[in-house]
């Protein structure tokens, strides 16, 4: 009997049923985000949609999905993501790609020139997207030996820095959300390439 009760309690703790209130709240949130996406889709600009539940990212314009990336893992810290379109304030990376400067007259002797251009391969695969309303999305490559080493360091950061920051913002009563997303290396670079400062995104929650 005791075992049965314990099993029942642990099942309820591990797999809680969605209550009516939670279901309604998530529908209201989804409704608000869909309205935000609808207004973004009316404009001629690119926008990014993070579907955390379905674990995919879409680059969209006018409602059309132009490219899609799978998300391999999601970690979440802090408050819920606000129910609104968020603008990308800046992209923060350890080594930022830099534009090449052409000097006047450089192209004259262009017969044996070497290509010195900014391409997708020059983009970082590990970076943080700083959005407005203090929402931070850290992108990490999920494969490769160096990626694993980097991710171990990042995990250490998660357990040392994130709690303190979450606590600090909570005490001050301010919004703070941090998301860690694991993507394939090439997808991470492609997202860095296409998601430019000032562009907006929608984050559908888990």
């Amino acid at each position, binding site marked *: 009997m005791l075992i049965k009760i314990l099993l029942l309690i642990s099942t309820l703790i591990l797999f809680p049923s969605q209550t*009516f209130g939670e*279901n*309604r*709240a998530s*529908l*209201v949130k*989804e*409704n*608000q985000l*869909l*309205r935000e*996406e*609808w207004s973004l*889709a009316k404009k*001629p*600009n*690119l926008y990014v949609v993070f579907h955390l539940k379905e674990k995919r990212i879409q*680059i969209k*314009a*006018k*409602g*059309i999905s*132009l*490219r899609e990336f799978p998300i391999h893992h999601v970690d979440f*810290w*802090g*408050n*819920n993501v606000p129910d609104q379109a968020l603008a990308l304030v800046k992209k923060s990376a350890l080594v930022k790609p830099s*534009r*090449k*400067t*052409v000097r*006047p*007259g*450089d*192209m*004259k002797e262009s017969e044996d020139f070497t*290509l*010195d*251009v*900014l*391409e*997708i391969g020059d*983009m970082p695969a590990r970076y943080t997207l700083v959005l407005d309303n203090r929402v931070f999305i850290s992108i990490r490559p999920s494969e490769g030996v160096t990626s694993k080493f980097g991710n171990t360091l990042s995990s250490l950061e998660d*357990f*040392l820095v*994130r*709690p*303190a*920051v*979450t*606590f600090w913002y*909570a*005490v001050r009563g301010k*919004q*703070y959300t941090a998301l860690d997303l694991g993507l394939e290396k090439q997808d991470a*670079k*492609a997202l860095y*390439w*296409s998601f430019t400062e000032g562009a907006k995104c929608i984050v559908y929650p888990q």
Partner: protein
Amino acid sequence: MFRDKKTILASAVFSLFLLMWGTGFYIGMWPPIETEGKGSARSVSRLKSENQYLKQRIKSMAPNVFYIVIDSGKNRLFLKKGDRVIHEAVVSCGSGAVLRDPDKKTTWIFDTPRGVFTVQTKHVAPVWTKPDWAFIEEGEKIPVTAQGRMETGMLGDYALGFGSGYYIHGTLYTRLLGRNVTHGCVRVGDEDLKTLFAATDIGTRIYIF
């Protein structure tokens, strides 16, 4: 004695960390102050149908006619109709390079613009009217007359203008297709350009990302 002190200190630091981690996580889980607006009075079934309707409306924005999608990072162009890819081509997009005019203090950034555009002009055997940067880049003097800027054969057999001086056009440098080498225009191979020119009209949408 020393070892005990060290153990106590380590335990205290660890406890403090656990306390902070737990508190931070717990407070972080608090839902933000909800300001329910329009959705507050609606029933669950109404919300569900409304959400379904919104999803459908967003999805239905894809044109049922031909449109062009350009991936400027991968240097690929797709001619599409609905969800179907009708034709795929390897192209060249903007190099992202920066050119500064030392005299006029003007700066050009050679990016292919991103966003949604439409075909505004269609040209057969286009003549390139070279802009200032083309002369500055080559260290040449900018001509005074419009005639001095004209150059034939550089843009291939066709060109599709999509605004602000940007074109989808042909190229002499076919070996560089697939690389980011242009000044912002989209270079396409001859055969692919022919297909594009035939499939598009003025007003055909171009999505660049």
